[in-house]
């Protein structure tokens, strides 16, 4: 009797009278924010690479040292060519991507809202989306000239299709209950589109932006490799032709930075426009 009472009293200490804690089985499958892991990994790879090059383990003919690539970049900066190349690329990217996105949103909304547009345009979009726009570049050169026109058009077409698809899928996903609510309060058609459908489709449109921006960079470089004097793509092509691998790496690094900056900007935009989500 007294023994039992004693056992019960110490019930909350483990290893006692056959009692043990319930095994913990939760946890995992959740990402923790780990702060500066990414830059550390990045710097470590750079350091290893540099070490490999200096010790002669990596031949400079196969892969130049990061310091050499960096020197090429510094050279580019000193001669002022950096801004010329970057400026030309950014201009094409901004123009092509903006026009492609605006047109894509407009057509995507039409496909999402009107049966006629859906029946008429959706098969066309589905047929043209998978065509690599680079394959059409010669055609664009004939249509829009070898200058800026063909390059902007390539980027425009490349961003247009994914934006159409993201937008109309977003419109389709807008909660029908909210639209019914708008109708039940007598809201006009335009009000329902502007205040319910467009904001409701915005998350999908913005995630479409992420994809279309990456596609735009890929197409930018491809387009600049044909008949461009300036631009990051032209610079890389030139470096490749001369086997100046340090410049080639520098150009690729520029593209990566461009991609990172754009992803960051879209992240900012999402934070601003979708702050209501979380």
């Amino acid at each position, binding site marked *: 009797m007294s023994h039992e009472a004693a056992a019960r009293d110490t019930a909350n200490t483990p290893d006692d009278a056959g009692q043990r804690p319930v095994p913990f089985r939760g946890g995992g499958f959740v990402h923790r924010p780990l702060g500066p892991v990414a830059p550390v990994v990045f710097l470590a790879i750079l350091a290893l690479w540099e070490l490999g090059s200096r010790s002669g383990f990596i031949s400079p003919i196969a892969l130049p040292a990061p310091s050499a690539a960096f020197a090429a970049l510094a050279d580019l900066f000193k001669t002022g060519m950096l801004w010329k190349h970057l400026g030309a690329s950014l201009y094409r990217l901004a123009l092509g991507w903006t026009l492609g996105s605006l047109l894509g949103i407009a057509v995507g909304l039409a496909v999402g809202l009107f049966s006629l547009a859906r029946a008429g345009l959706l098969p066309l979009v589905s047929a043209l989306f998978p065509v690599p726009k680079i394959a059409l570049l010669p055609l664009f050169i004939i249509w829009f000239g070898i200058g800026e026109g063909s390059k902007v058009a390539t980027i425009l077409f490349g961003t247009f299709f994914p934006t159409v698809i993201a937008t109309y899928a977003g419109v389709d996903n807008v909660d029908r209950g909210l639209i019914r609510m708008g109708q039940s*309060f007598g809201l006009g058609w335009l*009000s329902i589109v502007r205040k319910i459908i467009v904001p409701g489709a915005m998350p999908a449109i913005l995630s479409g932006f992420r994809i279309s921006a990456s596609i735009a960079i890929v197409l930018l470089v491809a387009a600049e490799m044909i008949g461009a004097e300036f631009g990051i793509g032209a610079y890389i092509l030139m470096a490749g032709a001369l086997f100046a691998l340090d410049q080639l790496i520098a150009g690729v690094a520029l593209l990566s930075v461009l991609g990172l900056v754009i992803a960051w900007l879209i992240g900012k935009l999402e934070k601003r426009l979708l702050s209501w989500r979380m």
Partner: protein
Amino acid sequence: MQLTLHDISHRYGGTTVLDGVSLTVDDGEIVCIVGPSGCGKSTLLRIAGGLEKPDGGAALLSGAAPEGSLNPLTYIFQDFALLPWRTVEGNVSLVLEDHGIAASERAAIIADVLSRTNLSDFARALPRQLSGGMKQRVAIARALAVKPAILLMDEPLSALDSQTRELLMDDLVALWSRERFSACYVTHNLNEAVRLGRRIIVLSRRPGRIRDVVEIDMPLAERVDRLAELELLQRRVWDIMREEAREADREISDVA
């Protein structure tokens, strides 16, 4: 203003959902509609508010809407239907923006309805920050903002826990005592029906027909204190419904 549903029939594909339902919602009257799951209550309410066209019969309005009513037939939805990207006041503002009301007057209406629903402190909150009960209060405030003649409520309290439901039911009773709105109130909760209804319309299982109508003369404000009598009424409604509900239950399991 009076809403009359005249001999409403409706089909979806091959199945008849409603069959010859007629009812009238008089001025200042709350009519509750109960019936087994899937019998067409929500469909009937959508027809009543002009969100769906009936295959047979008609929904008719008579009498003038009250002075200044912006949207005589106004819904309160089960899932609140608030825009998640708009604040509480933005959600109320939404239904006023298309009526060409000056911004200052709009702000005054918003402030008024938010204070009547005890939401003034939450004017700047987003829906995701609010509890279910609060969200439904916002939906009620939004409905009041357009000065409705008749409220159409489709299980407005079903998404809430039972304590919150009691609180909101008290709010609705207090609101009705002040404003004497008319309402068509769909619910499966018989307790809500006997607490709020002047008349309870019991629908049969699909196809929905009127099985019976239970009239309750007891004034709304007294009902909280006369729960024993309500309990008897609730039992009566349940006796009418029981067989229908059982059959409906079996029907659904046959289909599945």
